[in-house]
């Protein structure tokens, strides 16, 4: 079939280099043995990774981020599964409007959401609380969870549910024994994608996080604004390693392309 010519391949390599360069440099700088920003030309060292341990606020922010991601993704899934089933299974008045509303957080810039939540939470007394962070994160990750679960539900043969009903299964049994197992890959991937989006979020969170309850990206962002040193490179490197690991697992289990392009229907 058609093949890429040499010019195309050179372009491709430069493009990949452009994408990888900043990520690789962060990882490289993290291994420096010097006390200042530099490439590890004098030999590799783990001193900056050890230094993370001396900064408990990074550790705490990391734990908070994990907990926030897990709780908000789980809540988002609990909301998204019934909503996706309603949209995929029923024809009803306002169906398109409801779907548009669920996906609308994608259209609102996170900076605007940050401002809106700061104002709202301050007024209702949730300002700077973990609950506030969870609620706001559920809103922004809901579209990601919904899209994958919706794709899984619409891709499923409706006759299979009818078959279960004809064999005597009640609606709940049918959901538990047939529908849920069949959309489970979509639900699981929706959870992971929601978790990653929650874990990486910085723009909105920077407005509503407090010094006591903050996430790792926000902590990192605030730190970088003051001062860039090998410590932040080390923290970023850890983040990158974890993300790459999660990504590889996700790619094996579900397919990264399917996850991001959203082609669950095929």
């Amino acid at each position, binding site marked *: 079939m058609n093949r890429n010519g040499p010019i195309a391949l050179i372009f491709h390599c430069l*493009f990949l280099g452009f994408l990888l360069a900043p990520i690789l440099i962060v990882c490289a700088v993290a291994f420096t043995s010097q006390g200042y920003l530099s490439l590890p030309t004098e030999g590799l060292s783990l001193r900056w990774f050890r230094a993370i341990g001396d900064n408990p606020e990074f550790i705490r922010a990391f734990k908070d981020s994990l907990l926030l991601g897990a709780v908000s993704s789980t809540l988002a899934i609990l909301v998204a599964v019934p*909503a996706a089933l309603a949209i995929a299974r029923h024809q009803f008045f306002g*169906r398109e409007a409801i779907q548009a509303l669920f996906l609308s957080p994608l259209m609102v810039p996170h*900076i605007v959401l940050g401002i809106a939540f700061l104002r709202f939470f301050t007024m209702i007394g949730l300002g700077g609380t973990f609950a506030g962070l969870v609620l706001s994160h559920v809103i922004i990750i809901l579209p990601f969870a919904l899209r994958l679960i919706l794709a899984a539900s619409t891709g499923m043969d409706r006759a299979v549910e009818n078959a279960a009903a004809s064999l005597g299964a009640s609606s709940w049994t049918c959901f538990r024994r047939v529908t849920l197992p069949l959309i489970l890959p979509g639900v699981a991937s929706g959870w992971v994608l929601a978790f990653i989006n929650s874990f990486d979020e910085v723009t909105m969170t920077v407005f509503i996080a407090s010094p006591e309850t903050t996430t790792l990206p926000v902590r990192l962002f605030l730190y970088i604004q003051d001062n860039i040193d090998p410590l932040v490179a080390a923290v970023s490197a850890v983040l990158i390693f974890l993300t790459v690991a999660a990504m590889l697992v996700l790619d094996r289990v579900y397919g990264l392309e399917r996850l991001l392009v959203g082609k669950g229907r095929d």
Partner: protein
Amino acid sequence: MAASTETQVSGAQASAPPPPRRRRRWPLAPYLLSAPGLALCAVLLLVPLVMTFLLSLNSFSFYGGIQNVWQLGNYADIIADDYFHEVFLRTFRIAALVTLLCAVFGAPEAYILRRMKSPWRGLCLLIVLGPLLISVVSRTLGWALLFGSTGLVNQGLMGLGLIATPIEFMYTETGVVIALTHVLVPFMVLSVWASLQRLDPQVENAALSLGAGPLTVMRRVVLPQIVPGILSGSIIVFALAASAFATPAIIGGRRLKVAATLAYDEFLNTLNWPLGATVAVLLLIANIVIIVGCNRLVERRYKQVFE
């Protein structure tokens, strides 16, 4: 109606159809199923956004704080002030440049990726799309490290003899544009990739067999079919670039403000919440106009071609 009545009636009404006798299906089911999500979106999305709009109508004084009055003063201020013009103009200039660069580099890359063979294609796709999942802060930190006056980019360029003195990337538009292009180009690849999936590879061979050269095939056959992908990718990239915060904040710093960092400063440093809310409302309106408006345009233009 009881079943026994029904049975008696049936014999008598041989010609007229019996009244509809249905098992009751609950029409409320889909609403109940989507109720939690609806409540969540209504309370946590619509209410805060409306409140932000109301806040933008309040006024602010340095000593008195937020005044609970309803007026359009903040909007008038922004329209009148050259400083705000400059910030908004810069925001859209950056967004436009980033969109252009993403289209110019992302679209060919998607095409090249599609023509790659199986194991390489998956790996390269992983490298291209993977950065989407890595924190924006970490990726921007990488550019800050590369851009520093002793950073690799300047060292490399000077080493090659291309420049004599280091180029200033940090706190410049050039730096912000490069870093934002890096952050957003995967979205363009993704969008073009999706439209390439619908393209039948045999069509290119058909054009070649009819005597068209590779460039003609590209221009006359491939490009027209992926234009919708490029356009929808451009909408996403432009909207995200215009409202980007972390990257301009780190690379642009306090000196080079864009709309998002301006709103942030008004909120968290100057504490002029009404003005910050006004900037946010303007940003939101611009975003929605661009996304909805361009989507309409793209759909109308290309509806007849696809599906």
